[in-house]
């Protein structure tokens, strides 16, 4: 698998779509001192897409998702979400951006341990605008936790905790769901439950950017982006089962070798 960045990915990845992209990343760079975590990443996300963000550890996946979610700032480059350049937002605008436009799901769940499942969901409402207990109950019912409302996180299984986190992420109807290895700490059964919820969200039209190491999880996504050493090395809409294809220049595609949107035209049979 090559680790070289693909040339001009933004220009080449645009399939013929009518709707403007929901998210545009342009030459995004993030440096921690001398360490360059992201080395000029660019791609677009269309509304309703489910993108699996893959790559080895240290490739910049979490950094990218943090910048996109307004948890961190970029060293340079632009990130435009629904027409708003979030790299230019001040702290208070970033707070509103996180509250109103983003739903976060973390690998570690990040539930407040001394709040019940219901209160954890209501906490997101509290920071967004106003609390509505009935809505929070409904959100937990949707993820199958109607009977766990008053349970503290310690009394919930990992899968249940992650479902609370998903309910919390969805309670304010965000435009973009950012999930950082949401099944990373779950057993197979709970992983299936959580992924089913994401499938439903995708079918309902939510835009999802999910960091994952798991190929099986990534298969659920409509598009797969791979980062290596802070560079975009794959951006494909093909699934993992497609046979390896060759580009006109005769070299295999990176990763699994399926056809890539970057060269979709030339690779289509």
């Amino acid at each position, binding site marked *: 698998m090559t680790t070289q960045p693909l040339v001009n990915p933004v220009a080449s990845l645009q399939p013929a779509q009518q709707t403007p992209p929901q998210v545009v990343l342009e030459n995004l760079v993030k440096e921690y001192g001398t360490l360059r975590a992201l080395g000029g990443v660019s791609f677009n996300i269309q509304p309703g897409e489910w993108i699996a963000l893959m790559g080895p550890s240290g490739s910049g996946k979490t950094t990218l998702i943090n910048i996109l979610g307004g*948890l*961190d700032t970029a060293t340079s480059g632009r990130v435009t979400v629904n027409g708003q350049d979030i790299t230019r937002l001040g702290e208070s605008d970033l*707070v509103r951006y996180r509250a109103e436009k983003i739903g*976060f799901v*973390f690998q*570690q769940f990040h539930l407040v341990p001394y709040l019940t499942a219901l*209160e954890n969901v209501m906490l*997101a409402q509290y920071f967004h605008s106003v609390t509505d207990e009935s809505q929070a109950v409904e959100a937990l019912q949707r993820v199958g936790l109607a009977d766990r409302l008053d349970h503290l996180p310690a009394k919930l299984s990992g899968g249940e905790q992650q479902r609370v986190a998903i309910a919390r992420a969805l309670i304010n109807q965000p435009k973009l769901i950012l999930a950082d290895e949401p099944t990373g700490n779950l057993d197979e059964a709970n992983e299936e439950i959580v992924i089913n919820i994401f499938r439903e969200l995708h079918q309902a039209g939510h835009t999802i950017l999910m960091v994952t190491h798991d190929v099986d999880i990534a298969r659920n996504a409509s598009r797969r982006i791979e980062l290596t050493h802070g560079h975009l090395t794959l951006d494909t809409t093909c699934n993992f089962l497609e046979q390896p294809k060759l580009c006109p220049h005769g070299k295999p595609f990176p990763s699994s070798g399926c056809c890539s949107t970057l060269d979709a035209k030339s690779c289509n049979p």
Partner: protein
Amino acid sequence: MGATSGNRSMFRRLLRRLLFANHGRLFVILLALSAGAAVSAALLNLQVDAKRRINSEFRAFGPNVLILPKSSLASFDATFSESTAKEIPESYPGGRVTVSSALYIAGRISISQTGKSISGIVAGIRPLMFLRIAVAPSGTDPGKPPLPNMPQGPVCISGQRIAARLGVEQNASLVITDGDHSESCTVFSLIHTGGAEDDRVEVELHQAQRLAGLPGRISAISLYVPGTSQQKADYVASLQKQFPDIEVRPLRQFSEAQAKIYSRISGLLTAATAIILILTALCVMAAMTNIAAERRNDVGMMKAIGGSARRVLHLFVTEAVVLGLAGGLIGAAAGIALSVVLGKAVFGVAAAPRLIVYPICVALTVIVAILGAYPLRRLVNVRPATIFRGEA
């Protein structure tokens, strides 16, 4: 309206959860704050009480301003009008002035039962119980002697030294003569001040005036003037201006010593209170550092889901205020009770609980709790990603 009340209700819910998230930690923080508040309240109460206490202790040794006729140095018999005492202002910014008129005469003092007699100084005093009144707690009505079981008829007070010379005891009947006049009285008490009072017999002023044949005349007016040195100096100057024909003599050395001692005790208590509060703040800060470490991810998450630093901080500061209030209310109450015990140990008399100390001490404890929450305040200003990376 509903939205606001819903959020208030959620705020209270969050606060309750924060406070009771860890009972052991809550106990430790409350204990630290209460202990700090208790010691601070005890010291502050002693400090406030010290001024009154010192005034009281010093009053026991006598007046601090004397008013004498200008010719008093030339003649023991010099007198002036008793009405002067009535013109002395008893109330001024420094407090209530205690006034006593006296007429000093040399007489013959004898015991009725034994007939033994000696020559000695007789002081006619109004009010007779001046010294007792002067050391009584403020608020005592000077018109009512605070002494129970007063004997019927004229009473007198004998200094211990003259009593020893005469062989007189309490409740003995004395006859005092001066020339052709004589007066009798019952010894109500024996006093020992270490001063001139020990060598004289004190009777009612009108008795002394009858003995001397000087109705309406007095030898001196003694004043106890409370307040600061400056206040006393101003008061003495105004008196001198008011009575240009008599001499107003402040006992300066005594007043300055009094101010110096109060100043030292006050400074010591203030320093001790400040040290206690700083130590309390450090204890709370240590506990809060632990809490900050525990809540690192919670803060990161709260900010990640849209919590502004201000709102997250509001939660934690309110938590600190509630802890400070609880610790302050419990500790200050205990501290004031403690000061009563300490006062008894230091001054021999229980310190009076001063109500002003209570709110001051509670407020100081709340401030200490807020300062102690510094680690949490620092944490909420860190970017969520930095917290999640474990760099905060």
